[in-house]
Each structure stands twice: as structure tokens, then as C-alpha cells.
């Protein structure tokens, strides 16, 4: 029987692995993921990041600083598999499969039924969100795994303090979110399983965890732009000027209408920040996120599925009903974990909370398992089969998804990057910077170029965007074109004495700009057109050599 159970578990893990591997090219990388991919490659091959710094502990992105764990895990992949998407994906696929296995183990805390454990594992294996984030470099899949491992390490028969503290310390270098979530998670678990620990051990562990947390936070705060990074990315609710303006506007309307300013202040005041935060939090936990659309734009999940397949709705509702009805203490723990883990969403308005919700999915899976167990065996099996079918079908028919999400996950830029590289061997190349929202990482990752650019004098540049990669530069809205040379149409307007001649891969914006300036129909004389998945022109490789100031 034991062998049979193990074989079935192995089968589930193999299925989890397969659904994460195939199709290997999906999802297309975002700019940030391409940046981490390239960084992983430079770290593994040269020991520097994309800005040429030797094994740094704090990295740069276009929106925030990045803690090191994700980049170094990516580096492991590129070290073994080289500069390829597969190499980047594989470490995260492995983490995703491990998460399935350890959730299977963690579910043993909630039931003695082997089928219960297996179903928890199946829910994790076939969660569209977890599959998605197992295929791209990101911090959420790492932190999810650490959370589940922490639960196991804290609740095991013999607690290994070194393992526990190592997990805490590692988590603090994965994501800034961990600085809030992990201490709260550990303390809650310690309180809940207080019988497993002596009083001294509890105090000792709690103090050490908090000290380590504080140490990492202080270390981070020594970086010049750290406060800004936290304000803009982790406490953005309080940084949001829109809320302040709205309060003032609504208040002003009342005063204009003849109401007392004091009364207006009583009604419209800073307490609204909390209300906005609460609504943002609740909105991120709404049913559509869990079962129909985890991410509207496709940055953190497929757009036509939630964290779970639609067939998970009934098990989830039944599970919630069951747990509320039973009112056992370990059931309360499940809800408490979800609340603690997702609470930081309250403070990050207007930024999306998907990467935080993902951390709580193992506990949702256990709730759903309770629900599914209430169904008759055959009905439960049908639900599971339909869930697997739905997820598999959606993940094997990704054409629409690629089309829908090409704003954040552009596929076209890969070809442009390769073409730009080929041209750059002989000429300077310009690429309009609105073809994708941040083209530099794509050029670095998808072309054979190896070029690192210094962030300048600043040791930890904040929100640094690269604009020049070797012979390729990004052309912005402000750049102007001085003159044009076109041998084919007999136009030699200048020798480009003031600027530098470049071959331009232009967006519509720059084509229109050139047309207006020189009165030439550039779109009819292009060497190559780049069309998006809907067949709409996105960029043109111009025949003419453009002179750029």
C-alpha cells in the first residue's frame, strides 16, 4: 500500500513537472524577467551583474531595488544550461514542483487521510498561477516554498533551530515582503503550536527572528534611496497623491456648498487612507482573482484563469463552509495565515497584489481540499479531472494569451533585438523606446551581445534604465532627427556632421515624426516591418540612414 501511495505521489509530481515544462516557450518574458535572466547569465559567466558590479547583494530594476535570491537562483540555471530561456526557467520549475511536494507534506498537519494530502498536492500541481510563476524568474515562488517549509520546520516533531533560522534568514533576502510577512508568520505559528515549545525556546526563537529581520532592514536602510524605495513600492498607499487630492476636492465641494470646514474635515480625512487600503486588499482577494482572472494584464498569471480552475469554486465554497461550521483551531489557523500573508496588500495601493496573493495559495489549496473531500468520491474525482482538463487545455492553447498580453510580455521585441544585433555589427542602431516599455533587457537577453553598462558613480542606482547597449541605443520621445540620407530615392541631405548616423528601427511615433520633418513616406520604403500578433504594424526597419542629434 505504501509503495502504491508513493507511486501515486510520484505520478502527481511528474504531472506537476510536465505541466510546468510544456509548452516551454510560454510565458514570454517581461522586461524585468529578461533583465533577471541576463543578470543571471552575467553573474554565472562573469561574476558581475548587468551594471558590471561584482556579486552584488542588491540589484536594480526599472521600478525598485531587487533583493539577491531570485537573481542568484537564476544564475544557477544559466550556469548549467547556458544563456537560454530554458536555463532561466528550470530552477523555478523545480521550485514549483518542490512546492507541490511540500504542500502535500504540510497538509498532513490538517488531516490524517492520505487522499487529503494527495488532493492538496493536486490542487497545487494544477494551480494556473503557480504553474505560471514556476516558469519565470520571480520571488513569489521562492517565498511560497519558504513559507511552506517554515510551517513544516516549526511544526515537526523535532524542531531544528538552525534550519528554522536559516529559512528565516534566506527569506529576508528574497523579497522585502518577507520582512513583514515572515516574522508575523513565524510568531503566529509559534503561538498556535505553543505546546511544542518551552517558554524559553519560544522567547529565544522569537527574539532571534526579530533581530535578524531588524538587521536586514537596517542593512537595507543604509542604502541611500532605500526609504524612497520602501515608500514608493511597499507603502505606496501613503505616497499616493490621488487620495490626498480626492479628500481635498470632496472637502472643498462641501465648503463651497456652505458647509462648515470642521464638519467636512470630520467626514473627509486621512482615515480614508485606511479605507482605500482595505478595499484594495479585499479587491485583491475577490472570487474572480481566485477562479477566473488572477491578473488582468497577464504579468503574473494567465488572463483567462484565476489562481485555480473554475471547477475549484465549489470545493472552495464547501471548504469554507465546512471549516466555519467545524470551528476547529487548526482551521482558524488556515484563515489566519491567509490574512497575515495577504495583509501587506493593504499598504501597496495602487500597485497590484498578485505576487502577495500567490504566497497564500498553499493554504487556499488545503481549504479547497476540505471542500472536495465532502463530495462523493466519484463526484470529487470528476471535479478534479475537469480541473486538470481545463488547466491543461488552457496552458496548451496559449496563442490567445500571447496575443492578449503582448503589451507586458512582448514577443516581437525578441526578433527586433536579434535584427538590431546583426545590424550593429556594421552600423549604429537606434530602436524607438516605445516599441516595448523597457527594451534594453530584451536586447541584452535575446541577442548574442555581451555588454554591461555601468550605472555611473552611484553604487546602488535606483530605478535605473539602460539606454545604450554597445552599438545600439534607445531613441526616446525627446530625441530629434537632424537629417536624412537615402541613396535609393536620391536624397542626400547632409553628411551628418552634427549628429551620428544610425539605422533606425522605428515605432509609428518616430516614423510620423520623420515624415513630418522631411515629408517622406517612410512606411512605404521600409526594409522590414514588424507586426504584432494581431497583424498590426508595430515597428519598421528603415532603409534610410538617419542622422540623430
Amino acid at each position: 500500500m505504501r509503495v502504491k501511495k508513493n507511486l501515486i505521489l510520484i505520478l502527481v509530481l511528474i504531472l506537476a513537472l510536465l505541466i510546468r515544462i510544456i509548452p516551454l516557450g510560454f510565458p514570454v518574458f517581461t522586461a524585468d524577467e529578461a533583465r533577471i535572466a541576463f543578470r543571471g547569465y552575467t553573474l554565472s559567466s562573469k561574476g558581475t551583474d548587468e551594471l558590471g558590479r561584482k556579486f552584488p547583494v542588491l540589484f536594480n530594476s526599472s521600478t525598485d531595488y531587487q533583493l539577491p535570491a531570485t537573481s542568484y537562483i537564476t544564475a544557477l540555471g544559466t550556469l548549467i544550461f547556458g544563456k537560454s530561456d530554458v536555463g532561466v526557467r528550470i530552477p523555478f520549475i523545480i521550485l514549483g514542483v518542490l512546492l507541490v511536494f511540500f504542500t502535500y507534506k504540510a497538509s498532513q498537519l490538517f488531516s490524517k487521510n492520505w487522499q487529503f494530502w494527495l488532493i492538496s498536492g493536486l490542487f497545487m500541481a494544477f494551480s494556473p498561477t503557480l504553474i505560471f510563476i514556476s516558469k519565470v524568474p520571480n520571488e513569489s515562488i521562492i517565498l511560497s516554498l519558504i513559507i511552506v517549509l517554515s510551517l513544516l520546520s516549526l511544526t515537526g516533531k523535532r524542531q531544528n533551530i538552525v534550519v528554522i533560522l536559516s529559512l528565516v534568514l534566506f527569506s529576508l533576502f528574497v523579497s522585502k515582503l518577507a520582512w513583514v510577512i515572515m516574522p508575523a508568520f513565524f510568531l503566529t505559528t509559534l503561538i498556535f503550536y505553543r505546546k511544542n515549545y518551552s517558554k524559553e525556546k519560544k522567547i529565544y526563537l522569537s527574539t532571534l527572528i526579530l533581530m535578524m529581520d531588524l538587521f536586514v532592514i537596517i542593512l537595507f536602510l543604509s542604502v541611500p534611496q532605500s526609504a524612497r524605495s520602501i515608500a514608493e513600492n511597499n507603502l505606496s498607499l501613503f505616497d499616493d497623491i490621488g487620495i490626498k487630492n480626492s479628500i481635498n476636492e470632496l472637502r472643498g465641494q462641501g465648503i463651497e456648498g456652505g458647509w462648515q470646514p470642521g464638519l467636512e474635515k470630520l467626514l473627509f480625512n486621512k482615515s480614508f487612507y485606511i479605507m482605500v487600503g482595505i478595499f484594495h486588499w479585499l479587491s485583491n482577494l475577490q472570487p474572480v482573482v481566485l477562479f477566473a482572472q488572477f491578473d488582468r494584464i497577464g504579468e503574473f498569471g494567465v488572463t483567462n484563469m484565476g489562481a485555480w480552475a473554475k471547477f475549484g469554486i465549489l470545493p472552495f465554497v464547501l471548504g469554507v463552509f465546512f471549516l466555519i461550521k467545524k470551528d476547529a483551531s487548526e482551521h482558524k489557523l488556515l484563515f489566519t495565515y491567509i490574512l497575515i500573508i495577504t495583509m501587506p496588500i493593504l499598504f501597496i495601493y495602487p500597485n497590484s497584489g498578485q505576487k502577495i496573493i500567490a504566497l497564500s495559495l498553499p493554504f487556499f489549496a488545503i481549504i479547497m481540499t476540505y471542500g472536495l473531500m465532502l463530495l462523493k468520491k466519484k463526484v470529487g474525482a470528476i471535479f478534479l479531472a475537469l480541473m486538470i482538463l481545463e488547466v491543461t487545455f488552457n496552458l496548451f492553447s496559449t496563442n490567445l494569451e500571447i496575443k492578449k498580453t503582448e503589451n507586458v510580455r512582448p514577443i516581437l521585441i525578441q526578433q527586433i533585438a536579434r535584427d538590431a544585433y546583426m545590424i550593429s555589427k556594421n552600423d549604429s542602431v537606434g530602436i524607438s523606446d516605445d516599441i516595448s516599455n523597457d527594451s534594453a533587457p530584451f536586447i541584452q537577453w535575446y541577442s548574442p551581445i555581451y555588454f554591461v553598462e555601468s550605472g555611473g558613480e552611484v553604487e546602488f542606482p535606483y530605478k535605473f534604465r539602460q539606454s545604450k547597449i554597445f552599438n545600439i541605443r534607445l531613441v526616446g520621445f525627446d530625441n530629434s532627427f537632424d537629417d536624412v540620407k537615402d541613396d535609393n530615392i536620391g536624397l542626400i541631405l547632409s553628411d551628418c556632421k552634427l549628429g551620428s548616423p544610425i539605422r533606425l528601427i522605428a515605432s509609428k511615433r518616430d516614423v510620423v515624426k520623420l515624415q513630418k520633418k522631411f515629408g517622406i513616406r517612410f512606411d512605404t520604403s521600409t526594409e522590414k516591418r514588424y507586426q504584432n500578433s494581431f497583424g498590426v504594424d508595430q515597428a519598421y526597419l528603415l532603409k534610410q540612414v538617419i542622422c540623430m542629434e
Partner: protein
Amino acid sequence: MHGIISNKIVILLILIFLGGFLRFFKLEEYPVQLNLDEVSQLYEAISISQTSKDVYGNNMPLVFPLFGVYAPGHYIYLTSLIIKVFGAGEITIRIPAAFFGTLVILSVYLFVLALFNNWKLAILSSFFIAISPSEIFYSRKSFEYINGHFFVFLGLSLILFYIKRDRIWMGIAGFISLAISTYTYTAHAVTVPFLIAAYLFIFKDKLVKKKLYALPPLFGVIFALPLIYLILTNSDLHFRANTIFISKDPELGTLMDAVKSENFLLTFLFQNKTYFDYTLQRYLYQFDPSYIFGTGLDLTNRGYLDVGPLYYFQIPLFIIGIIFLIRLRSVSAEKKFLLSLILLSVIAPSLTFESHSPHRSVMTFALFSVVSSAGLYWLIKLTKNSLIFFGLVVLIIFINFIYVFFVYTVNFPYEKSEYLYYPFKNVVLYTWSQYQNFDTIVFDPQFGEGYPLIGVGAHYYIGYYGDYPPGMFQKEYTIGSKPREIILDKFSIRQIYWPEDKDLKNTLIIVSPWSVPIDQIDKNLIIRQFNFYNGMPAFFAIKL
């Protein structure tokens, strides 16, 4: 026993009075102006009461074309009767909804009483309905859904009483009441059959034990037959249903195009799957807590700083109410029925082209209020009727109520006056005051604060505020040859083309900056400016 009964009735009457006060207080002033729906229905009601025809000359129509929306006519006919008593003042159009909106307090009381046989819970529920933002908001704007809303809850309570008290007249009256509701608004026509199906399914064991158990539903079907016939045969209703159906959602249209391929079978498969996925997303979006408690009524343009169909304070009560109801023993079928009602009442709003249609979800919000009142009921029980707790609850409710009251009366007109067609009334009154001074009055109803809207149905404002006899309207109303042109008497409602129209003589032109470059016009020609409620310019009167 008598004492207890009369106490219950007194409390209920107080709540109905409170609810009535909140619905009728300054009904003429808030909302600050009759919107297009209200004006068109009012003028149609006048037309019916005077000529038995609508303004387009249709004799006693069942479906009114109005301004292209093809609405069922019960509200217009009802108003035409009220006109005979109260006259055709602006408030008249708002009276039916405010009246039935007040009666909803009673019908929800009966519904909860029938469901849980707990009068305290029923009283708390009716209290929440009495002060509910969504109930008050929609009861004050002549919204025909509200009338059906009353009949739905009345019908549900009667068919629930029928099960428990075994009086067949209750079953018959209940099904008739539900049938009546389907005539009032399309959303009810979609939802009510599902509600009945859930009722028959959940209570089937108890129903089959009754004598003549098929009789009450049969009465419902008989009363609904004319509507069924109308739905099957009336092309106007089909047109109406088509225009608001989810298939008209442009985002869905784009997705459907994107999955097209040369393979017919694959296209069929993927398009249907896309359709299903999208509809389910739309369905689940109706349960967004921020929409339900924070932004759903859309009274401001300030994101989460808005008013939801339910109050902020109902968030914790709602969660506690769910826990209470789940743990409540002995009413298993009733709980299932309540859950079914919530889930089924969301179907109609999810099948429309709008991502959220709160006006089609008022029943869902009322059911959520029932759940949150269960939360309060439980808390009161847990705190053993503590006066401190009671005082705290009253204080929180009062603060939240004052906030909603302020946003509704003060901020809403500032933020959303353009959606109330403000200042169409002032514009039209002015044009009528200038009627004798010009040969022609041209009105281009393109307007807006942030982006241009076309104010369709402007002819209703002209008809109503000009006291224009509907009989004359029916004769004078013609479609002109110019873009968007409607001709009525001296009025030409149409798109202005300034290079041509600037040469017109003895003409009054009403136009917004979206249609004419106002800053390039001789200032002496501009004889009047009309502003939105917030003071931004909306229209200019130009004398040619």
C-alpha cells in the same frame, strides 16, 4: 401576546416611516435635476394621460421606444395615473419608485420572517433596507426596477409562508406577485424564473406533500403568459435585449476576433470557450467587495472614495453574518435558498455589456443586507444586549450614514452632474423664454466635462419643460436630414457644423465647446453661458 405583536408592528411602522422619510425627503431637489430617463418617462406619461398615445404616436404601447432604449411601459402607465392626482410636476415621476422603495422595507421584513421565523432578525434586516444607500439611491430616481423589487420580495415571502403555514392563497398570491415583477424590468424577467426553479427544487419534498401543489405555480405561469408571448414576438424587446447583452461588450468582441482561425471547428470551440470564460469572469466580478461596499453607486470620480450599495460598516457584519448563518442549525433548506437567491440574482447583471450594473443588482444588495443584519443580530446576542455595544453600533451607523448623506447631496451633483444631463433643464427653459425672438432654435446636445457625450433624447426636455402639448408633439416631431437631426416646432436638435451654421440668420444656437471653437467667436454673439453644477462651462447660447 398582544403587547408583543403590537410592539413588533410599531417598530416595523417606525422603520417604514424612517425609510419613507429618507426616500421622500426633498425628493424634488435630490437628485438635482431630472435625468433623461426621468424626463422621457414623465413626458410619455403625460402623453399617455392626455392622448393615450406615446410621443411618437403609438397607441398604448406595451414597449416604449423612448430615445431608442425600448423600455417596458409599466412605470409610464403608473405615472400617468398619478398625474391625474398629483399633476405633472417633476416630483410626480419619482413618486412610484419612492413609494414602492418604501414598501420594500415591509416586503423584506416579511421575507426574512418567512425564511428564518425570527422577527428580531427581520426587523434588523428591514432597518438595513430602510437606510440602505442602494435602496435609497434607486428609490429616489424613478427607477422602475424598484417596483418589481418590492413584488419579488413580497412573492418570495408569500411562497415561503405557503410552505410553512399551508395556506394555498399565499402560494397563489406569491406566484402572482413574482409574475407581476417580471413585467417591471427585464432583469426581473431574467432572474425570477431561476428563483422559482431554486424554490421548487429546494423545497420539493415539502411541496409535494401539499394538496393542489401545482396550482400556485400554474397561476404564476398564467399571469406571466402575456409577457412570455411578448418576449417571443416583440421585435422591440429583442432589439433592447440585444443592445445590452454581454455580446455587445467591445472587449469580448476583440477576444472573439482574436481566436478566429481558418478551421471552423477550432474557431467554434475557442469562441464558445472565450464566451464562457468571459461571462464567468463578469459573474464573479459582481462579488468584488470594493464594488459592493465602496464604489458601486459611482457617486464620485474619486476611485475608492465613493459610496457603495452597502455601507462601510456592513463589511465586518457581512463576514460575521456569513459565519452565523453557516453555523445556524435547523434551517438548512432556508439557508440553501438564501444562498441560491444571492447566486441567482447576480445572473442578470452579469449578462450585460457593462462590467458592473448596480441598478440590476439591487436585489443582490438587499440580500447582502439581510446577511449583514444576521451578523449584527449575532453580535447583539453575543454581547447580551449590552447598552455600550448598542450605543457604539448606533454611533458607527450614524457616522457612516452622515458620510453617505453628504456624498449624495453635496458631492454627487458636483462630480456627476453631466450624467444627470445637467444643465439641460436650464438650457431648455432659456430657449423657451427666447422662443418669440428667433425663427429657429438649433440645439447641439453634444456636451461633457472630460470628453464629449451626445445628449440623446433632448427633445423630451424641450417637450416637458416647454409644457408642449403631447398631441402637438406627435404631429410636429420629425427626423431631419442633417446629422442627428430631430425637428420639433422651431427647434432643430442636431449636430452643428460651424463653417456652415455661422451664416444662419435670426437663429439661436445652443452649443458646447466640443462642437464650436467658442474662443474664436465674436463675444457679442454669445448671449448666455450654461454651466455644469461644478461651474465648468457646458453650453453657450449664440445669437445669429
